[in-house]
C-alpha cells in the first residue's frame, strides 16, 4: 500500500470518527453496532472468498460478547485492550478446536455444521442460570489504559475503538487478501484438487481463514457488548448468523470495504423498516434479500466496480 493511500485512509478514518461522534446519540449507537457487525461480516467474507458460507459466525460473536461481559462483571476487568485480547484468544482457541473437524466440510455441510455448533452454545447459555439464561446479563462500562470515561462518554470511547479497529483490521485483511494465502483462498473455491497438485494445503488455507474469521467475529461481539451494555444467548442463535450472511451477500465479497458499508446500510435499513412497519420489518428484509440475489448477485460492491470499469474505459 502506498504512503498516499495510507494517508488518505487515515484522513478517512478520522473523518468517520468525528462524523460518528457528531451524530446524535441513537445514531452513533447504531453506527457502532454496525461497525461491530461489519467486522464479523469481514471475517465471513474472507471465508466466502474461499467458497465457504458459515451459518455459525454467531458462535464467535457470542463468545466474544460473553467473554467481555464476564470479564467486566465477574472479574472487574474493564480495560478495552485486555478485553479484546481475552475475547480473541478464547474464540481463536475454540475455532482452532472446532476447525479441525469443520474444515473437512464444504458448501452446504459447512454451512449447516457451523450452524449446529453455534446452536450448541445457544443451548448451553439458555440453560445456564449463572449467566442469566435467556435474559443474559449486563456489561459494565469500559475503560482504556486506566482512563474510565464514565457512563456518558463510554459509548464514545467504544465508537473510537470500533472505528480504529475497523480501519486497522480492514487494512490487514486487505493485505491478507493480496498475499499468497489470500489468493489461495480463491483457488480453493475454484478448484481444490488443482491447488493440491500445485503443492498448496487446502486444509491449512481453510483452517487459517476459519480462525481469522473467528477472531474478527469475537472482536465484533466485544464491540457490540460494550456499546449495548448487554449480552444474551440470542447472539448465538442461528438467525443472528443468518443476518451476517445477509449483510455479506448485500455487500459482496469483492473488497474489504464492502462488508463494512453493507453493515451500516443494513442497520439503517433494519431500523427504518422497524420504525415504518414494526410487524413486517422481517418481510421487508426478506424482499430486500430476494432482490439482491436476483438482481445483484455479487452484491452492492458490483455497482462500484461497474462505475470503475466505465471510468477505465473512458480514459483508455
Amino acid at each position, binding site marked *: 500500500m502506498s504512503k498516499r493511500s495510507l494517508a488518505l485512509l487515515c484522513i478517512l478514518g478520522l473523518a468517520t470518527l468525528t462524523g460518528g461522534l457528531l451524530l446524535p446519540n441513537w445514531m452513533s449507537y447504531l453506527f457502532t453496532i454496525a461497525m461491530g457487525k461489519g467486522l464479523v461480516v469481514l471475517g465471513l467474507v474472507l471465508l466466502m472468498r474461499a467458497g465457504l*458460507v458459515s*451459518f455459525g459466525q454467531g458462535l464467535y460473536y457470542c463468545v466474544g460478547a460473553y467473554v467481555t461481559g464476564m470479564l467486566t462483571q465477574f472479574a472487574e476487568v474493564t480495560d478495552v485492550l485486555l478485553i479484546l485480547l481475552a475475547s480473541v484468544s478464547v474464540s481463536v482457541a475454540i475455532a482452532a478446536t472446532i476447525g479441525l*473437524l469443520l474444515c*473437512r*466440510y464444504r*458448501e*452446504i*455441510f459447512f*454451512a*449447516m*455444521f457451523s*450452524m*449446529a*455448533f453455534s*446452536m*450448541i452454545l*445457544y*443451548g*448451553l447459555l*439458555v*440453560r445456564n442460570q449463572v449467566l442469566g439464561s435467556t435474559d443474559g446479563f449486563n456489561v459494565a462500562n469500559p475503560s482504556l489504559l486506566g482512563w474510565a470515561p464514565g457512563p456518558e462518554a463510554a459509548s464514545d470511547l467504544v465508537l473510537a475503538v470500533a472505528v480504529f479497529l475497523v480501519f486497522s483490521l480492514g487494512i490487514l485483511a486487505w493485505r491478507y487478501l493480496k498475499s499468497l494465502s489470500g489468493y489461495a483462498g480463491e483457488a480453493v473455491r475454484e*478448484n*481444490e*484438487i*488443482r491447488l493440491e497438485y500445485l503443492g498448496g494445503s487446502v486444509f491449512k488455507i481453510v483452517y487459517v481463514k476459519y480462525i481469522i474469521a473467528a477472531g474478527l467475529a469475537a472482536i465484533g461481539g466485544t464491540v457490540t457488548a460494550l456499546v449495548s451494555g448487554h449480552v444474551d444467548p440470542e447472539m448465538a442463535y*442461528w*438467525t443472528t448468523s*443468518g443476518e451476517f*450472511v*445477509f449483510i455479506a*451477500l448485500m455487500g459482496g465479497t469483492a473488497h474489504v470495504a464492502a462488508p463494512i458499508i453493507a453493515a451500516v446500510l443494513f442497520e439503517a435499513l433494519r431500523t427504518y423498516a422497524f420504525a415504518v412497519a414494526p*410487524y*413486517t*420489518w*422481517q*418481510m421487508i*428484509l*426478506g*424482499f430486500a*434479500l*430476494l432482490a439482491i*440475489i*436476483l438482481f445483484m*448477485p455479487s452484491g452492492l460492491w458490483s455497482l462500484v466496480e461497474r462505475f470503475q470499469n466505465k471510468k477505465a474505459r473512458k480514459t483508455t
Partner: protein
Amino acid sequence: MKQLLAILVDGSVYASWLFIISAGLTLIYGVMRILNMSHGSFYALGAYSGAAMVGWYFSTGSVPWFSFVVLISSALVAGVTVGLLVERGLLRFMYGRDEVVMILVTYAVLLIMEDAIKLIWGVEPYFAYQPYTLLGRTQFMGLSFANYDFMLIGVSILIGLALWYGLNRTQNGKLLRVVIHDREIAGALGINVSKIFTITFLIGAGIGALAGALTAPGLSVVPGMGIEVIVLAFAVVVIGGLGSISGALVGALIVGMARATAVHLYPQVELFVIYAVMGLVLAFRPQGLFAVANARKI
C-alpha cells in the same frame, strides 16, 4: 424401570414428531437439492391454519370427532397452496443456482412468511387443545400417557410407509428416483423434470404443514415457532444423511431418544445434547449415516 419406560415413550413420541417434520425437508433436498429453510414456516403455517380452523369449528358446536379432518385438511390446503405459490412464483426461476444461494433464497422466503403469518393471525397465541383432550389418556405401569401422542407415532409410521411405497413401488416414484439419480439424463429421456420438482415441493410443503397441524393441539401456537423448529429438523436430516428418508427416520429416532434421556436424567443439557449427537455422528460419518458418498469434483 418406570423411568426407562417414560424415556422410551417420550423418545418415540418426540422422534415421530421430528420425523414428520424432517421427512418433507429431506425429500425436497433429495430431489431438488434445495435445503429448504422455509420448511419451518410451512410448519408454522400448518399449525396456525389448523389451530384457527379447529377453534372456529368448535365454536360452531358440531361433532367433535370431525375436528381431526378439519385440522388436517386445512393445514394441507394451506401448505399446498402456499407451496405452489412459492415454487411456481419464485423457486423455479432459481433452479441451477448454487446450493448455498438456494439456502439464502429460502431464508428470504422464511423471513417473508414469518411476517405474513403474523399479519394474518396476529401475535396472540392460539390454542387448539380440543383434539388433544378428545382422545383421553392411558394409564400404564403408574404412568399417564396422552393417547394423542400415540396417534402421532401412528401417523409418522403411516407417512414413512407412504413415502417408501410411493418412491419404491409406484411409477411416479420410480421417475422421481431417476431424476434424483441424474437430473440431466432424466430430462434428456423426456421426463418432465420441472413438473416433478413442483410435485415434490408440494408434497414436502404439505408434509411440513401437516407436521405443524399435528403439533398444534399439543402446545400453544405462537409466532416464531417455525424458526425454532427448522434447525432441529436440519440436525435430524444431517445425522441421517441429507436426502435419505430412512436416514431421516434413524436420525429422528437417535435425536428423539437422546433428548428424552437428557430431559429425564439431565434436564440442563436438553438442547445441547441434540447438537452434540449430531457432532458425534458427523465426526465419524461426515456425510451422515445413510448418504451416498460423492466424489470430489475436478
